[in-house]
């Protein structure tokens, strides 16, 4: 069903990671993603894995939830691993069949790539698990605010993002409602060829568009009524403040970078 889509999946909690400043989290997650690509040897990657597991434990998000975020990507991970296994060659050859060659280097690269993607996914999903969408867009707004020098309206962009996120569940609900109403009038949505099916979408999308515009007008009106005039001179109820724990995290991540670089230097590179 469409309602299974979960975007901005936030896991309510009160852990160290939850309490961190969203801006710092954003920057650190970005840095960590870069570190993952800096890893050259299995040892440096292993350090990243250990750190990731540590971060998951620290966030108190259940492992089951984390696995759920990996689930949709399993096919992609397997696919990249499979490609790498056969397309990278070098080292001892274990098995050969026509042009396909299974080599030591191929296997190493495949494992390396798979683990790398896993770490990337888990780290970035930790960000959304421990930060509410509102906090996240707030952080983006603050981080991008230097761009206003170039007359880019950062606040407006952030507001649009917040609103878009907010209305996803509403629209999903709306689509389901309209689909049911048209099905009750005998619309066939699940049968027929491509043309018949795309034609069947008209009775769904016209009402959806109409009500989206109606909603947009109503929302704009409601915001105007509450004196919303954009970002200028707007203050916040929740001030973002960097606390000691944010600096501790930053130092920790910096130490991690050092560790990755040292391990890269002393051990053999896989890729």
């Amino acid at each position, binding site marked *: 069903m469409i309602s299974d889509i979960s975007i901005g999946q936030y896991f309510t909690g009160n852990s160290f990671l939850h309490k961190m400043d969203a801006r710092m989290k954003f920057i650190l997650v970005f840095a960590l993603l870069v570190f993952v690509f800096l890893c050259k040897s299995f040892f440096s990657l292993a350090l990243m894995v250990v750190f990731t597991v540590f971060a998951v434990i620290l966030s108190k998000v259940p492992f089951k939830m984390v696995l759920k975020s990996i689930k949709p990507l399993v096919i992609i991970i397997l696919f990249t691993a499979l490609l790498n296994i056969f397309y990278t060659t070098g080292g001892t050859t274990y098995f050969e069949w026509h042009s396909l060659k299974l080599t030591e280097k191929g296997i190493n690269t495949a494992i390396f790539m798979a683990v790398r993607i896993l770490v990337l996914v888990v780290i970035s999903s930790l960000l959304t698990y421990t930060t509410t969408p509102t906090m996240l867009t707030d952080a983006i707004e603050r981080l991008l605010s230097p761009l206003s020098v170039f007359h880019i309206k950062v606040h407006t962009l952030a507001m649009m993002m917040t609103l878009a996120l907010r209305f996803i569940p509403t629209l999903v609900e709306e689509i389901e409602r309209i689909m049911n109403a048209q*099905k009750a009038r*005998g619309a066939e949505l699940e049968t027929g060829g491509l043309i018949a099916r795309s034609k069947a979408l008209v009775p769904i999308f016209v*009402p959806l568009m109409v009500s989206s515009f109606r909603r947009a007008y109503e929302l704009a009106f409601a915001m105007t009524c509450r004196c919303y005039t954009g970002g200028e001179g707007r203050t916040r109820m929740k001030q973002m403040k960097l606390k000691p724990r944010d600096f501790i995290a930053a130092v920790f991540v910096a130490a991690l970078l050092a560790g990755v670089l040292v391990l890269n230097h002393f051990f053999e590179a896989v890729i």
Partner: protein
Amino acid sequence: MTPAVEVRNLTHYYLKGTENQVAAINNINLSVEKGETLGIIGHTGSGKSTLIAHFNGLLKPDEGEVLVDGKNIFESKETLRQSRFTLRQSRFKVGLCFQYPEYQLFEETVYKDIAFGPKNMKLPQEEIDRRVLTAAGMAGVRKENLEKSPFDLSGGEKRRAAIAGVMSMEPQVLVLDEPAAGLDPAGRRELINMIKNYRRATGCTVIIVSHSMEDIASVADRVCVLNKAEIAMLGTPKEVYTRDEELRSMGLNVPEITRIFIMLKKRGLDVPADVFTVDDAVASIRKLSERGKA
């Protein structure tokens, strides 16, 4: 006689399989006779809308079965289709009209929108034309509006056009979910009269979901009260509305006029407690005053 719609031990869960699983409707047994008008009343979240979405197979029961015209609609794909329409008899079985049906309008003209259902039934053009005009007449869609865009109509007119869109399929059972929600008193009255006329003209089974006691009282033969996913009461309006205290504990109200009469009775006046409409009230007060004179 086989009932028009029957549900047996019907249960439907929301968020099934998660920790938050709740029964939206729990072990419901209900049968609706042919030609009857049944009112379904309940507090918000009592399971009314979930229940009616089972009548034409939009929702699948987790337990129990749904019989339309004596046939289990989930028996096969074919029976499920037939619950929406039977091609051979070109007769729609259960026509479901959702809450705020005006949000389903999409065609260029009102006429085309009303014709959407019959067209899906693959009826010949003359038959479609006949049905559109009949349904438009019954639902009170004015002739000059038929060629207008549905988005140019007023709220009440849109509502009527959307209801006509369901009526034009000439269902054996017409299910209306909160047909009068959001209309002004005049629009409400018109709508209730429209439903009454429809019944008189077609003799079809009508099921109305509402939380307005007044509306239900004036049209329904029987009333089914849902509370916390279960049927709390089932009977004629008279049987149900005299259980004033119980209804209130479920967050429902008896019609205002009934409450006045119940209070009058408590104060020792010799009036009946089963008055649901103002007309009845006037009549019984007249009777009382005539008796007083005599």
